[in-house]
């Protein structure tokens, strides 16, 4: 009964667009499909990730950041942090999680990475709009002071997460144990990225070392863009995360091209 499908020859670009679209829908719907709560859970989980620490830390420490409201400070710290973490880990684990997908000739590993990054950027964006609206209802001043700057910082975050994700994925497809170490390293990242407290309270010597962590820069940049009168850390630099994003993406793409990110086969 299947009539011979019309041979519509698609260009490479059209194929990639079709594939990324299909993967994006799959990524989102396999999340919806996980439980009965469906769509709600896609958002409830990350919202809870954000709301619970905001509630806890807001109650514990009221006025630790001079001049700014603490919950707003927290949310704009979590925003780049969670975005970075979600995309980076998705890509590192992407080589493993998507074995089946790659059986189709149209689907390349890079398409999977791009779709995953897009899906998580979208999810995080929706989550933050929800959380910010919630805070706004409680009378906090949540609107970003310089929205374009904030958008640029977030774009940089996605870019850096993507590049570092590629490099780490190459490392962990070579040394499978690395995946575990990477997952462990993400736990303290939360504390050393200045998400829950301002690093300006630390001594200079320590902050200088902490500034090696690019996520800390992103967190600070996000707050500068979002809040008026925020006092960032001394060693803040835009060039550093930008250079790292460019460098890691270049290195990651090179490793990808050299087939270091193998589709691991049995």
């Amino acid at each position, binding site marked *: 009964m*299947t009539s011979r*499908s019309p041979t519509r020859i698609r260009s490479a670009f059209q194929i990639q667009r079709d594939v990324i679209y299909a993967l994006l829908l*799959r990524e989102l*719907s396999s999340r919806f*499909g996980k439980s009965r709560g469906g769509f709600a859970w896609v958002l409830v989980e990350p919202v809870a990730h954000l709301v619970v620490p905001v509630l806890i830390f807001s109650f514990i420490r009221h006025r630790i950041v001079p001049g700014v409201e603490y919950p707003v400070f927290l949310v704009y710290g979590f925003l780049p942090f969670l975005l970075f973490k979600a995309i980076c880990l998705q890509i590192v684990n992407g080589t493993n999680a998507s074995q089946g*997908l790659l*059986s*189709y000739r149209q689907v390349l590993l890079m398409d999977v990475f791009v779709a995953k990054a897009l899906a998580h950027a979208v999810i995080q964006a929706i989550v933050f709009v929800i959380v910010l609206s919630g805070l706004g209802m409680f009378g906090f001043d949540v609107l970003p002071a310089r929205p374009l700057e904030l958008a640029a910082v977030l774009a940089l975050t996605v870019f850096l997460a993507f590049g570092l994700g590629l490099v780490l994925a190459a490392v962990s497809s070579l040394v499978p144990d690395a995946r575990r170490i990477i997952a462990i390293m993400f736990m303290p990242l939360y504390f050393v990225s200045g998400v829950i407290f301002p690093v300006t309270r630390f001594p200079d010597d320590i902050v200088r070392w902490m500034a090696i962590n690019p996520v800390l820069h992103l967190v600070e940049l996000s707050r500068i863009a979002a809040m008026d009168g925020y006092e960032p850390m001394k060693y803040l630099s835009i060039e550093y995360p930008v250079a790292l994003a460019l460098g890691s993406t270049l290195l990651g793409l090179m490793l990808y091209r050299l087939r270091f990110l193998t*589709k691991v086969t049995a």
Partner: protein
Amino acid sequence: MITLDRVTKSYMTLNGRVFVFRDLSFALPDGANIGLIGRNGAGKSTLMRLLSAVELPDNGKISTNGRLSWPVGLKGGMQKNLTGRDNVKFVCRIQGVRRAGMQEKIRYVQEFADIGDHFDLPVATYSSGMQARLAFGTSMAFDFDYYLIDEVMAVGDAVFKRKSRKVFRERLEHSKVILVSHNMKLIRKMCNIIVHLDAGRATVYENVRKGIAAYRAAGGEP
């Protein structure tokens, strides 16, 4: 026509790079069913993955003007947490089949797989037989010039086996197969060209009997 031009494929392991093929070149003529034979570890599956573009060669080029399928009967391609229907939709989308075309494919697979309400349940809940039915049905819903088949073809119970053989025979009237098998009876029955893989080299035999003889001489089972 399928041509391999100086194809090199290696895998990176902790002990360094391991080469499966170095500068492998050969051409397969049009309109032939191709049997891929060789001893274990000769690189049959790797070649199949290269042909189906599951993996890309390190170097060299594989070109064809035909449409090659994904490995038929493949279970790995099904996403376990999606329903059967969503899986078919996914395949349609990556093949560029939309709207009415997609509905037609879905109807075809649903009818062919014949797994009732399970079609709208996650694949993870399927029995292995049901998974195979869905996978085979999906492969048959699309037209290819070559179907890539790795060893196992007929799955499921007797009724389904009969049905899939019938559909497959119809399909072979205008499509060809590339078959990997250790079953020389099957190879002799289906193929008219043999590619014998041995120690990273491929020899193409237009004479099936000669190909099988070479395989046996290289130590393949009778």
